[in-house]
């Protein structure tokens, strides 16, 4: 039986079906989880997909962090469960304190929607495990608040520990240190602004997201087997 991935849906999430399809293509069984659901026992990994959870009101992710599912998700993460936040999902994870720092409005107030070249700079996460550092991938970005910020100490800690897992080759949004994706100290919680699920088939321009999704599925399969 394949790894089971739960894709969390908040009111305003809009990438959930693409995300389910892409994870199925990467070899998992994926299904949707409504944001009021607090029972996550059946899942080996959880994904917060892109969109505008709770309308992005107050700040992106600010209200989503109080959704009932988030307490259960935090316990799942604390137990070592693989958790991935894509775009708005990354914003939710920082607001919830499961990843450090914050995502602020892009440099120049520019909404970016374009393919982006990103480089895997660390393989110490469930999303980048066994991918050779230095590997470049082309994955679309689509966001207004994707400029990563954190304090200098947090940045130094993350750099030293290989927790900056993805960097932009050409920074599209003013993100600190060209950061496109980071991970938790244990490597099991990952957030990234690019959308790997939108790069899961050459038919849509790039299949470069698949290695990332497969790494996540492999991590989920390890949980499943345990």
């Amino acid at each position: 039986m394949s790894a089971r991935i739960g894709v969390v849906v908040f009111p305003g999430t809009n990438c959930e079906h693409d995300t389910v399809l892409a994870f199925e293509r990467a070899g998992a069984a994926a299904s949707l989880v409504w944001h009021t659901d607090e029972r996550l026992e059946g899942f080996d990994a959880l994904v917060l997909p892109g969109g505008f959870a709770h309308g992005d009101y107050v700040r992106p992710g600010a209200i989503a962090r109080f959704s009932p599912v988030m307490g259960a998700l935090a316990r799942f993460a604390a137990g070592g469960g693989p958790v991935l936040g894509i775009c708005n999902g990354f914003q939710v994870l920082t607001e919830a304190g499961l990843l450090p720092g914050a995502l602020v409005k892009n440099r120049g107030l520019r909404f970016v929607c374009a393919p982006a070249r990103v480089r895997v700079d660390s393989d110490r996460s469930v999303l980048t495990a066994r991918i050779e550092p230095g590997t470049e991938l082309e994955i679309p970005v689509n966001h207004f608040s994707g400029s990563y910020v954190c304090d200098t100490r947090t940045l130094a800690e993350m750099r030293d520990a290989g927790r900056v897992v993805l960097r932009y080759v050409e920074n599209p949004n003013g993100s600190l240190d060209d950061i496109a994706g980071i991970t938790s100290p244990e490597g099991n919680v990952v957030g990234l602004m690019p959308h790997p699920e939108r790069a899961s088939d050459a038919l849509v321009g790039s299949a470069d997201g698949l290695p990332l999704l497969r790494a996540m599925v492999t991590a989920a399969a390890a949980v499943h087997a345990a």
Partner: protein
Amino acid sequence: MRYAARVEVRLRPGIADPEGATIERALPALGFDDVREVRAGRSFRFEVDADDEDGARRRAEELAHRLLANPVIEDSEVEVHQMAPAGGSR
């Protein structure tokens, strides 16, 4: 007692404020050559029931810290004042 609260949320010094910068760049075209250091923020207004003004302030500050502002990037400032009793003349 019922208190009116206003919470102002601003980006912390050192956090880039593209909105404030964009407004500032547009000002000379409107004849405001004399305006500097524009910072954009947002304000929230709400009413809170509490025994006294300190209690109302504490609740408003708690709401500001837990939801309205993200302490990683934002500062907040809270003002509260007692509202006129219901049915009072204005």
